[in-house]
């Protein structure tokens, strides 16, 4: 599934890389992205297109929301059927 996420984050050291790192670590590929400061120049608007075959974007948005530097996050794509990690492949 492809999704578009729009975030507003504080313009502070590490915020962008922390955000992108979390998205990749949680099993989503970043297919394209755009980032620019908003009018206040205190925050950055980030739009990210992501792809995942088996992970829930709702869970991802909640994980992003927990980041201390993230002010808001919205998923701009339609609601999906809940993704379920069916197999426990842990060792």
């Amino acid at each position, binding site marked *: 599934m492809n999704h578009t996420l729009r975030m507003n984050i504080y313009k502070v*050291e*590490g915020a962008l*890389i*922390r955000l992108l*790192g*979390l998205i990749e*670590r949680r099993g989503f590929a970043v297919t394209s992205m755009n980032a620019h400061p908003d009018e206040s120049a205190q925050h950055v608007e980030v739009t990210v297109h992501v792809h995942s075959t088996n992970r*829930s974007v*709702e*869970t991802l948005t*909640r*994980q992003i*929301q*927990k*980041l*201390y*530097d993230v002010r808001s996050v919205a998923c701009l794509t339609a609601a999906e059927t*809940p993704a*379920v*990690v*069916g*197999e*426990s*492949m*842990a*060792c």
Partner: protein
Amino acid sequence: MSAKGAELVVRALEQQGVEIIFGYPGGAIMPVYDALLNSSIKHILARHEQGAALAADAYARVTGQPAVCMATSGPGATNLVTGIANAFMDSVPLVIITGQVPTVVMGTDAFQEVDVFGITMPIVKHSFIVRRAEDIPKTIALAFQIASEGRPGPVLVDLPKDVTNAVPATTPIYETRRQKRQSPDPEQVEMARELILGAQRPVLYGGGGIPIAGAVDAFRAYAQASGIPVVTTLKGIGSVSTREENFLGMLGMHGNRAANRAIQESDLLICVGARFDDRATGKLDGFAPKASVIHMDADPSEIGKLRFADAGLLGDLAESLAAMPTGLAIAPWQQWCAERKAEHAWRYDAPGDYIYVPHMLRRLTEEAPDVTIACDVGQHQMWVAQHCHFDRPEQHLTSAGLGTMGYGIPAGIGACLARPGARVVTVSGDGSIMMNIQELATIKRYNLDLKILLVDNSSLGMVRQWQQLFHEERYSEVDLSDNPDFVEVARSFGIPAFRITRRDEVEGAIRRLLETEGPLLAHVCIDPKSNVWPLVPPGQSNDVMMEELSA
């Protein structure tokens, strides 16, 4: 005279009520160590930064408050990494302070420079690089707030040396406001109540979130009032007393068969501060296949992460539990569970003369119900979880999520310092103990009353067990028969030690451990072929439990 950045660091820590810091000095953190000389804060010198981080982790688990560890830049910082990851995986509030090379040379591959901010990004709740001395008070205060609020976790503060040496023009004192705990959504509460009232076979599935949320009393009260059978995760052990009638044991890979069977039969799983970890669930789509799920947690991203929640109660666990109904008509289910509990009760009549570790551990906690056990990782860790009695979760310190070999001794040190006078025993293995053996020097230096029960099977037992069962007995790098003489090792650190090899020596050894003042190591030699049973093979569902193989 205005204060230097380093003094602001120490003042900010004092303002947070910090009494003890675990750490190790070095070049880039020297200004802070200098300022510490003028502080009432006690510094505990570990002999490796990992030991400092893991001791702080245990200190935080026992006190329920954020603990502090500190190291210099470069190797000092990278040595903390395992301890930070350990705290992250088990949601432990930790504030980590690292020295950093001066800002002007950051990014030039300066001596002892590493990007610890970048290295630790996936294993911290949050992190900061402080670039101006005047930001120090605010940053430290924020670090404590973030580490402890909501779902706790480690927060790293990286301090370049020029910042700790600088004298800021103004020194603002910054105070943070505590966030009120969130209340669960009333609609979800109502849905959960209906699910419970309609359930025939409910099970309470309690995790490490219960002690973290300060909800142990609420959990016990609800378990008692509702009569719903209880299983716990590894970190949830002690959330109800393990002697409690409706406690069925730990669930999962090495869980009690009664606990796993109850889960598999249940029609409603009430998950309280747990996260459907793979060691608990086994094959996920075979886990509690007939059950609806109520999930109570403080972390919104856990609800529905691995298992759909029919009702998700986000917020304060105690408040959620207090709103749940009691007076349930589940007598036949309670009786079924009680029968399974009796049917699968642990047995201690193992044949042979070798020391039977499950029985020894059981006897230890029978003789000393107040004992705090700091575990290492491996077979002995599972035996502790299965066989020891615990009245409170803080009595059981274990590296659950990360499974960090080497946790046991530093954790024992942290527990001794968190509760002076408390009875603390580290249960370790011959593999694990060598990973932080240098911390014996810390025990000696501070004359900590830590007892060490070292269970030695001359091998990496858990790996050997898996190679036996799942790799056709092809044993690869698990033989440790050339271990050092652990009694001599302990004595060379100035710690008295003794050895037992026979079953009839166990009672005397337990007495000696409990009656001796000061540190003591008991080296317990056991059958190298001992295994942990039962066992759910990896990737299987929890109703596939292997029992002991006949010899």
